[in-house]
């Protein structure tokens, strides 16, 4: 058995099935509860990431940073050196927001894989699942898992098993994924100057990522879409608990530009 399975996949799959057994054998509820638990366990990492991001943003808004950008506009090497110096002075790590994300990444991948593997709808998948089960509880009594939740068969894409009206399958869960991903990215991303290249990239990500996630939600087994929605909602709540939500971000940029212009902030169109 490989390290990935031993450390990540097996504990997750067995936890998921154990939660399922305690929740009236409802796999939809199990996904929701399991996602919440994983997000709670990884909350210190999320909090650390949010704090680092905030510190970085505050620093980038400072006059010292802005002056440095203007002063070394044509000399990238010098600018990088000065930026590193400032990071040191301010005690901010440029990787402070990346590292927790990197640590969370295997968890997210593991969560995705464990949901897909636990659903096991084909012989190869079911045979594969048996290799991940711990022997000290009676998994045989629970398998196959009940894949049905609300109107969904969690093992099938919503496009194949959704509510159909006049021959068209309504992408209800996919729309929820788009909405919550959009909400999360807008609420958690601070407003930035429009001329900034990184900010432009961020804006495009905020625009296309929800659509991309919606496409995945519509095409992949709906158990995964349920995980996306739950994870997004919990993410927003965690951000809210930390007092970092900025509802003004939901207002289109041109309106905020106008208000900022009137209050003296620098914006460009």
């Amino acid at each position, binding site marked *: 058995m490989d390290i990935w399975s031993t450390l990540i996949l097996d504990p997750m799959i067995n936890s998921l099935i154990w939660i399922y057994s305690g929740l009236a054998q409802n796999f939809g509820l199990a996904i929701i509860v399991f996602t919440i638990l994983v997000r709670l366990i990884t909350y210190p990492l999320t909090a650390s990431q949010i704090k680092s991001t905030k510190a970085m943003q505050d620093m980038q808004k400072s006059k010292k940073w802005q002056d440095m950008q203007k002063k070394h506009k044509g000399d990238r090497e010098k600018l990088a050196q000065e930026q590193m110096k400032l990071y040191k002075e301010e005690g901010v790590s440029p990787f402070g927001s990346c590292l927790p994300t990197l640590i969370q990444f295997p968890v997210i991948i593991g969560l995705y894989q464990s949901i897909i593997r636990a659903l096991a*709808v*084909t012989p190869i998948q079911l045979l594969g699942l048996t290799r991940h089960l711990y022997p000290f509880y009676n998994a045989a009594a629970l398998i*196959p898992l009940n894949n049905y939740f609300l109107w969904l068969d969690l093992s099938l894409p919503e496009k194949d098993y959704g509510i159909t009206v006049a021959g068209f399958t309504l992408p209800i869960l996919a729309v929820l994924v788009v909405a919550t991903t959009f909400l999360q990215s807008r609420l958690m991303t601070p407003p930035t100057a429009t001329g900034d290249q990184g900010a432009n990239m961020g804006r495009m990500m905020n625009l296309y990522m929800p659509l*991309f996630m919606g496409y995945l939600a519509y095409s992949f087994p709906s158990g995964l879409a349920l995980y996306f929605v739950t994870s997004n909602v919990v993410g927003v709540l965690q951000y809210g608990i930390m007092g970092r939500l900025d509802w003004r971000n939901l207002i289109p940029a041109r309106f905020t530009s106008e208000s900022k212009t009137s209050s003296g902030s620098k914006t460009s169109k």
Partner: protein
Amino acid sequence: MRHKHLLFLLVFFAIAVTLSACAGAATTATSWPGLTVDDEYAYVAYNTQVYAVDLVNGTERWRYPAEADNNITFYADPSLSEDGQLVVGSYDYNLYSLNAESGTQNWVFPEAENRYIASSLVAAENVFSPAADEKLYSLDLNGRLQWTFSSEGEAWAKPISDDNCDCLYLPTMDHSVYAVDAQTGTQIWRSPKLGGAIVGTPAYGEDSALYVGTFGGKLFKLSSRDGSILGEYSTADGGWIWSGPTISDGVLYFGDLNGYFYAVDANDLSELWKLSPEQLDGEIVGSPLVIDDSIYITTEAGILFKLDTTGKIVWSQTIGDGAKIYTSPRSANDLILVAPIQVDELLVAYNQDGVRQWAFIPAE
């Protein structure tokens, strides 16, 4: 800025298409080959096509469809009818009837709402096809629906028929076996819950008892009259039983996913002998093939074993590097046929001395 939007869209589109291709199991096999034989041909259903292979030399007679269609995938064992039909279910929710001689399509039954993982039982006048939509469909030989029976779980195993009661026994993943009237599709009885899913076809004994293996690590003897439990045998370490047992001369032969292989007395379910995973190397998924006093079993490690009825290993043959075997071996014209995966060969034929006769590798 417009160019950047376009670039982003293209990147996302490329990722989405790639991920969809990975998720859709169109070309990635999600099961192992289905295999059946008659006197002339072996019929192999695997992934996008069904192949008819000449038993004399392992050459391809025909394939269906002629051009692979990624939306149609086959894994269930095909079934032959007396009037020359080859019936095989697909993961596209359709049941296909092909002309076994030519490979042309006779009819398609499209009413299932999920995959066909189980093989169909073909009787003199009917085709009984369980699907993963928790239904058993009875059709006439022209593909017309006669009746539908609904269970509470998916059926991954071929049912068996019993002429004594004109009924069928359908094992399901809801941990129970159903007896169904073959004429009307009404339920005659349902066994108690047996502690685990059943994905193997039951064996029918001379004493009119049914023998089913479960994921709960038990082999049950059931009354064919009312489905009551007459006895049970527990596997070593609770190993899950995937395929049904094979019964011969009052002895049940079966393997488990821990790699044990058992010979159990069908009468009182006492253990006669067993082979350990150390002796056999790998999970045993397929049912054993019993010919006279010889038992042929395959393991996940890609090995074909010949045993005698005392449990002694007569010979073993490794199919090839990296090969895995989950399909039950079959016999025709003194050949032992195995259908491995993860190697080029789709079908390999041995004689009863373990000498390879030929191998079928589908042409691209």
